[in-house]
């Protein structure tokens, strides 16, 4: 009887490495170039806006109709940066919980992949909430994607990053759903690892954006 038996181990490949893991690293490599192009566009246009609001400087008449304060909100963004960094910690702990499920030392919260995945989702959603608040307040202060070069490049860069975070949160939700349905265990390490790599990449991109866009004048 010719029945193919499903196994959790993968067929040997020409490289000896799992194709899915090679694919996610190649994808992350390509994403590096995407974000580098968006960051370079932002940096090239920085300081070349003719009308305000501006990121770090106030805008006064006659350049602006009324006085406008610097628009970037550093305290809120610092908080969201901290939240995203902590979400990476929760993600590695989720991966460790899945990989070591049932092993000694991984009982209670430390061994609960559901808890850490949920914590990562909550922190990712919090980051997105901060970004939504920031975007809304910018629009209320008169900065849209069409206002000036800063607005165009800023919303494109941070919007692309926010879209990546959203995709990551949805991906994490599917993993949590799988965990509730059948439980994630050591055999699922690779699928969680791939999601974790994506999530950490989103984090490192924000590390660069936070410094280059928000802190450096």
């Amino acid at each position, binding site marked *: 009887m010719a029945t193919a038996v499903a196994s959790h181990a993968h067929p040997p490949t020409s*490289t000896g490495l799992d194709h899915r893991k090679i694919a996610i690293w190649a994808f992350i490599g390509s994403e590096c170039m995407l974000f580098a192009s968006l960051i370079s566009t932002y940096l090239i246009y920085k300081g070349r806006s003719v009308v305000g609001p501006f990121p770090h400087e106030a805008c006064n008449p006659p350049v602006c109709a009324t006085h406008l304060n610097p628009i970037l909100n550093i305290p809120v963004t610092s908080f969201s940066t901290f939240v995203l960094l902590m979400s990476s910690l929760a993600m590695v702990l989720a991966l460790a919980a899945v990989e070591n499920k049932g092993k000694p030392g991984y009982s209670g919260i430390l061994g609960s992949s559901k808890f850490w995945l949920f914590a990562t989702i909550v922190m990712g959603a919090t980051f997105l909430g901060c970004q939504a608040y920031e975007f809304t307040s910018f629009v209320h202060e008169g900065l849209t994607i069409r206002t000036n070069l800063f607005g165009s490049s800023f919303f494109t860069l941070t919007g692309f990053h926010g879209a990546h975070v959203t995709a990551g949160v949805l991906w994490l939700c599917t993993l949590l759903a799988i965990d509730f349905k059948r439980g994630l265990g050591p055999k699922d390490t690779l699928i969680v690892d791939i999601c974790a790599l994506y999530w950490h990449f989103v984090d490192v991109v924000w590390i660069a954006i936070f410094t280059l866009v928000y802190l450096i*004048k």
Partner: protein
Amino acid sequence: MADQEFHHTNADVDVHAMGEMHEHPTWKQYKWVALILTLITALEVFIYYTSFKDSPLFAPVLLVMSAVKFAIVVMFYMHLKYDHKLFRALFTGPLIIAMSTLAALLFVFGKFSGR
């Protein structure tokens, strides 16, 4: 026979090379990494609110701190320090191209000449 053709057990596969069972940092290391990342971020924000912001060293110092945070996350959280060298090449290769392109574009558009 067909069963055997399609069935692969762990014994058939080098799971270490597959990247599934590579060595990972411990909980303690993860905790220290998180602490270091938090401290660097706090320091970045702190110096933003000091007079050091007007120093010519402000941007280079922030860039170095950002690069350290980037490297820590990639090495420890993404496990690149412990993973197969092909993964390292797949990440660092495009990253070098991306950084070089970014630097070249900034030169072309006069961002380093103060224009």
